[in-house]
């Protein structure tokens, strides 16, 4: 697989404070990555370093195998950082034309990209007249101008209203579906869960985990069940060897699995014992539950 970006022991110190602490991970082509971490965990600093705006203290990073200079490599990258930064006195089209000049790409794709982010009707309005959501969408259009190898988004939905958040997510999903590699930094877990296939979790500048989203912990998921006879349901579930833990909450029984098991298997098992279910669903822990689990593990360790 083609490596787009690799970090090796990347470190940033601000005086005594270590914002990013020997961070190493690789970004492969074609995946959607999430960098996850609470506010102030070093996400933006990490992106700042690979994007040439923050000087690293030590360590290495390499774009596209490390054969090009960072600023040349960045021409093949599309990136937006927390706040969309454009020239307030220029219109959307004028701002994008400037980005084309900087990136050394022809400016014939401006309208097409404005179409993707639904800004075509405002293309001749000055940037300073835009709402935050529109500014953010313009930033995405600008990041797409060079048909980037990788799209880097740092907190793209920060400060937006629900409608704006939804629009941005739809756009990201569309771009991801087109096969573009994406690196998304966020503290919003469901955001990452909805769009990412891989995740890097950092806290206090240290890496806690990196890998596929569904392999964060070795959990096999859980069942949620309901039946007329809740008493019997619980007893039967406790007796099953493949189930680790059973609990009841608001008339729904939750059974956490010890080993992989299909919903059919448990259904057949209960039916044989003479109990028919009125409700059965198999679920995986959400990223939020897994994330909390993971951070708990490390803080107790």
């Amino acid at each position, binding site marked *: 697989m083609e490596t787009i970006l690799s970090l090796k022991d990347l470190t940033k110190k601000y005086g005594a404070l270590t914002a990013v602490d020997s961070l190493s991970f690789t970004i492969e082509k074609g995946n959607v990555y999430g960098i996850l971490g609470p506010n102030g965990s070093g996400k933006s600093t990490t992106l700042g370093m690979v994007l040439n705006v923050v000087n690293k203290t030590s360590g290495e990073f390499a774009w596209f195998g490390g054969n090009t200079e960072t600023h040349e*490599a960045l021409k093949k990258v599309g990136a937006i950082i927390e706040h969309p930064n454009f020239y307030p006195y220029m219109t959307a089209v004028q701002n994008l034309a400037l980005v084309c000049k900087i990136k050394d790409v022809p400016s014939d794709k401006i309208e097409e990209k404005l179409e993707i982010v639904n800004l075509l009707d405002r293309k001749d309005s000055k940037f300073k007249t835009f709402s935050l959501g529109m500014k953010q969408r313009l930033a995405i259009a600008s990041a797409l101008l060079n048909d980037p190898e990788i799209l880097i988004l740092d907190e793209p939905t920060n400060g937006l209203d629900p409608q704006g958040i939804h629009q941005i997510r739809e756009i990201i999903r569309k771009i991801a579906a087109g096969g573009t590699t994406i690196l998304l930094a966020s503290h919003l877990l469901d955001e990452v869960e909805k769009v990412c296939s891989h995740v890097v979790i950092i806290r206090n500048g240290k890496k806690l985990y990196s890998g596929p989203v569904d392999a964060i912990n070795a959990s096999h998921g859980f069942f949620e069940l309901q039946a007329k006879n809740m008493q019997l349901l619980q007893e039967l579930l406790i007796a099953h060897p493949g189930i680790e833990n059973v609990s009841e909450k608001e008339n729904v029984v939750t059974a956490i699995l010890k080993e992989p098991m299909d919903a059919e298997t448990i259904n057949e098992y209960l039916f044989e014992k003479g109990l028919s279910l009125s409700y059965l669903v198999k679920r995986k822990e959400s990223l939020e539950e897994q994330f909390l689990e993971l951070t708990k593990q490390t803080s107790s360790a």
Partner: protein
Amino acid sequence: MLRLLEIEYHKLRYSRSAKILVLTYFILITFIALIASIEFNLGAINFRVADQGIFNFPYIWHFNSYIAALLKLFLAIVIVSMMSNEYTNRTLKQNLIDGLSKKEFIASKFLTVTVFSLISTLFLFVVSLILGLSFSDFTEVSIIFSDMEYMIAYFVKLTGFFAFCMFLGILIKRSAFALGFLFIWWILESIVYGVLKWKIFRDSEIADNIARFFPLESMSNLIKEPFSRLSAVQTAATQVGSEIEKDYGIHWYQLIIVIIWTAIFVFLSYKLLKKRDL
């Protein structure tokens, strides 16, 4: 190089305040011509400035380059704000992320500064030529094109001054404060000169010799005031019994000092930008 200039031109052409200031600057340069129409009618004495020889070749090169250089503050505002706005709009950060290197960023700004100086010099050349051809008593080609070193000095002076403005814009990041600092710097130079002249090296040339290495002083030294060179003033001085003896020429070492300052300011701007986290 053309790409860098294009980028900077794109940034400036849509900025209304930059356009107004640049336009004002060039219009004001043409207003030098208006001096020609100044007339005094004091009873019987009819005094017309244009007749005093200020538009005579080659003196006009000296006079116009001195007067036009006073207007450089208009362009200085444009230059300071084109640097510091990149910080306040945080577009510098975006430029770097989009793939402009820090070196290219400084290069694009300095190239623009140079182009500004060049255009201003050419413009002044044309204006002076027209004025001279209309009012000068001598219009022989050899006289017209003598003393051209004033044009070179004008170009070097402007470039040096604008490089200083560019550095201040990056250093201070806020246009108003950067311009304020420019003013403070100018006062500081005068104070240091005063202290040297009247306290430390009394009655000697040493203070002047040191002061001509100061950045602003070295720039203003390039083209000295032309008024005392006017024949009317000269005659007046002789009548009072004092002889004005001044070296109005431009010397290569003065040019070198300003060019070195220019290089220092560009280099410092780059170092500063490289060191900073954005």
